[in-house]
């Protein structure tokens, strides 16, 4: 008998089964946890307004829409900047020009039968004025779940204006998807902390998939 031969059942077949069972039970629990995570993240409530329908994430904070917005929801559980989705209706106008900074009350208007390029210019200018350190990263024509759209990829800095707020500003990545619909443009926006941007993208695509107009 040597020093390692302590009376032990740890080499028995039953013990090896037990060892394997521990790993399997843990994996089963984690799988159940993953399914729970997916089910929570995919929970949604129907939203309908101004002819737009979508499945909005359940449990998110809904803010009062500003300007042409019809929906503005934010994930309250995100650390740092809360991931935000918004839907904006940009109506067309016959006789008013759209990008005139001197006339902010008319700012949400784009020409009737506007092209993607015109709406993009309008949105870019709007973001540049409203968002700190706005930078346009990319813009391109895309097809979103069968719908022709235009994608604007950008970044800005979100900072609490309170001077006593002692936290670093957040770098926020944004994506706008512009859909033209008759004399309206519909803009679906995704804002997320740049660290969470990729991870949260899948959930936004589901939201986008549910969008009907």
């Amino acid at each position: 008998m040597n020093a390692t031969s302590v009376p032990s059942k740890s080499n028995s077949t039953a013990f090896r089964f037990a060892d394997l069972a521990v790993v399997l039970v843990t994996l089963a629990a984690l799988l159940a946890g993953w399914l729970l995570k997916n089910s929570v993240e995919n929970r949604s409530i129907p939203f309908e307004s101004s002819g737009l329908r979508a499945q909005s994430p359940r449990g998110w904070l809904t803010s009062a829409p500003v300007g042409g917005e019809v929906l503005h929801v934010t994930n309250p559980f995100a650390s740092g900047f809360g991931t935000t989705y918004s839907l904006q209706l940009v109506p067309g106008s016959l006789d008013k020009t759209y990008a005139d900074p001197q006339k902010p009350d008319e700012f949400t208007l784009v020409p009737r039968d506007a092209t993607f390029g015109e709406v993009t210019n309008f949105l870019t200018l709007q973001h540049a004025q409203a968002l700190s350190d706005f930078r346009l990263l990319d813009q391109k024509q895309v097809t979103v779940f069968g719908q022709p759209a235009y994608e604007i990829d950008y970044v800005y800095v979100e900072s609490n204006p309170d001077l006593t707020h002692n936290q670093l500003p957040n770098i926020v990545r944004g994506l706008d998807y512009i859909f033209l619909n008759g004399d309206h443009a519909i803009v679906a926006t995704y804002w997320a902390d740049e660290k969470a941007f990729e991870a949260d993208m899948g959930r936004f695509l589901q939201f986008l998939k549910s969008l009907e107009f």
Partner: protein
Amino acid sequence: MPDHACCVCSQPASSSIGSRWFCGKHHQSATRERPHTWRLSFLLVLGLVTFVGLVYLLDLLLHPALTGTPLILAGVLLALVPAFLWMVFFYLQDRIEPEPKSYILGVFLLGALLASAVGIPVVEDLFHVSKWIYTDTATTLLGSILVVGFIQEFLKYAAVRYSVYSSAEFDEATDGVIYATAAGLGYATVLNLQFVIANGGVALGSSVIRMVVVALAQASFAGITGYFLGRARFEKKSWWWLPSGLALASVGNGLFNWLRGRIVQTGISLTGPSTNPWLGLLLAAVVALVTLGLILWLIRRNIRTALAAK
């Protein structure tokens, strides 16, 4: 030629405790009375309470504005002191053949390493737990058990099972509890360090209470798994014995996290100043203390059984 060899040193054995044989020297070491154990344990707990009170008082009176490196150093100190005191507390409970300190320290470090390299990345970066777990009560409870509880408890189990478990020093069922609590305290130290670092300007006075409770809870829940591991080492048990221990510890761990999470929920609620943010921590502390009581009772029962069978 003797029939048996000492389970510690392999020299010819003369007496046994339960199914283990010891030489004269190690038998004497295993069975000697340690009358000071209770007094030392009490003094350790008193020391812990004094430490918490002192830090709380200093924070209250001086309002130290620590930032950067001093804050991190203070956080490291606050995380390590409770872990050290709890580790000595659990170590003292091992009356028969106390384990080598180097082994205990090794398992502590392994628990810390697994928390840092696997546990925290899986919970935070793979499962993104903080983003969805506080959605509603059922989700918080289930998520705390299935994800947080099982990951943490499995890693603490692994820290013992795949290191000292097969060594000659693991020579009694109680050793499972002692080593597992060391792994749990290693895990808790990293969690507490992460808490200090992630919160930069955390209020040291209130966070020290949280750290002491987290350290106790992580050690106690690991102790449950350790108890099952220890029994499985020396007794014939069914295949479901070890998974049951792990599941029990995970449920306790999840319950603790759920109760502690109530602090987060009250923090963002609109229920106003009537909400007591310490309620969650208090309830979580009760769960941890009940588990500690259970662990101590199991250790004493193991020792009594072993000595009675001498």
